[in-house]
């Protein structure tokens, strides 16, 4: 049986953080599914990890650097061609405020 780990308000809050707008139907479906899944994730608490180091990256621990030299890149046009919302080499967006 799934615990009630998050409530509807939190589902709405998280959707807001992720820039998503859920309708009522989605909210109630996600409320159930997210609680099921988070309940399952709680299984990890059975393990004592107090003294265990986290692994964020499996094989490398050092940054990869390369020489700071200018190399050819894509022409601006090739990138701007990916959208129709543009003007004078800038991306056009709706008003910000």
């Amino acid at each position, binding site marked *: 049986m799934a615990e009630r780990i998050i409530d509807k308000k939190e589902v709405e809050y998280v959707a807001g953080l992720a820039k998503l707008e859920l309708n009522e139907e989605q909210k109630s479906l*996600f409320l159930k599914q997210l609680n099921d899944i988070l309940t399952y994730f709680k299984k990890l608490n059975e393990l004592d990890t107090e003294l265990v180091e986290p692994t964020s990256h499996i094989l490398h621990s050092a940054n990869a650097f390369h020489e700071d030299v200018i190399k050819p890149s894509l022409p601006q046009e090739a990138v701007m061609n990916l959208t129709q919302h543009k003007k004078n080499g800038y991306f056009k967006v709706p008003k910000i405020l």
Partner: protein
Amino acid sequence: MQLNELKGIDYIEMVRQRKVTVEEVMIDVFHQIDRVDEKLKAYLRINRKGALEDAKRIDQKIKNNSKIPPLAGLPVAIKDIICTTGIETNCASRILQGFVPPYDATVIRKIKKAGAIIIGKTNMDEFGMGSSNENSAFQVTLNPWDMTRVPGGSSGGSAVSVAADEALMALGTDTGGSIRLPASFCGIVGMKPTYGRVSRYGVVAYASSLDQVGTLTKSVKDAALMMNVIGGHDDMDSTSADVPVPDFLDSCREGIKDLKFAIPREYFKEGLNVEVKDSVMKAINTISELGGKVEEVSLPNIEYALPAYYLIAMAEASSNLAKYDGVQYGLRSGDSNNLEDMYRNTRTNGFGSEVIRRIMLGTYALSSGYYDAYYLKAQKVRTLIKRDFDEVFKKFDIILCPTSPVPAFKVGEKIDDPLTMYLTDVYTMPVNMAGLPGLSINCGFTAKETLPIGFQIIGRPFEEEKILRVAYNYELQSGKNCSRKPTI
């Protein structure tokens, strides 16, 4: 035999000996696509004109006695998560619909240079998120062995294109089993190399610490052939490993008597289908008959790998997918009053429900107050999983186990229950958690429904050679792989 049924390695030999032209093979490939793909729906789009032109160009080179490139016009299908210049790449997502990359992924640049020809882009679970291919925004690919069943995911389109002879070979990606699972469901060879072995530059990111490009092929030698081309360090990928790439075709030689094999007992517990278990046990016996020393071992923390894996994958996904905002490329939802609205409308309309679910869970796990309890905890458990494998690999060269707990399931069977769907990855995702190389190869079929069963060969980091050698010896001994074809 139609030319599209050729294994990659045999194709190249025939082209070299001028027994076939690239164009003749290409025509048979497209003929097969025309015949079966309306039913199977492996491809999202076909590069017919470009591929036929490339075929003619390479044939002309061969006619002029120029040096034949290593892949000699090989017709390859590409998962739609890998960027291809001039060919739309949308990850089976509405949010990237219409995105035509202005550059090639490093793997594409490499295979093109080696003379491969892209025949089309294959269907997948949106952004690689799924185990059945049902999460594509556009179509559901069906399993050629039983068209009421899923091909596995997320590289399901790539697996079907190879299993149904609609391509000679395919590339896919594997974050938690996305190459090996569909390979096992479709009865072919699926190879996920060591994390860092193959460049991820130009591969749309899902979970960056787990994603890896690999191969879907009709034989072990085909996997070795393709690995020779795509492996190696790349300056454009900061996680790419600077490790020498051996000639993997040399690994396809007889003899495994020098190798020690571990069988993790946790992989054979409850939840494993009886027929799958029997088939895998038979395969292990074959390895033993070939002279491999086989012993049972334990991976004590493995039951915690799945929740830790999903937490990490979802957290990384929520961060990676934050860039889809409708500003620079892909979908933009109109009629928004302001920028914030435009972001929300675009993302809500552009992402499918599984992607939204994973972004939500990932965002939650990373949010203030929950980070330590979920994300950090999962990363610590990842350390424990890696230690379990390290311990086994101190004494053993190879781990053998099933690829999936069940054979291909029915379309619709698990789609409404995300948690049950996640459990499909239980035997494959630990390999990604530990960054290991793994390969799935067919080891039999279920009796009643004739569904393929796969078993998994896992090795130490950067020891793909041993995996390929074991798989090659098994393939020779069993004579099984891809000799049996689905009737479509």
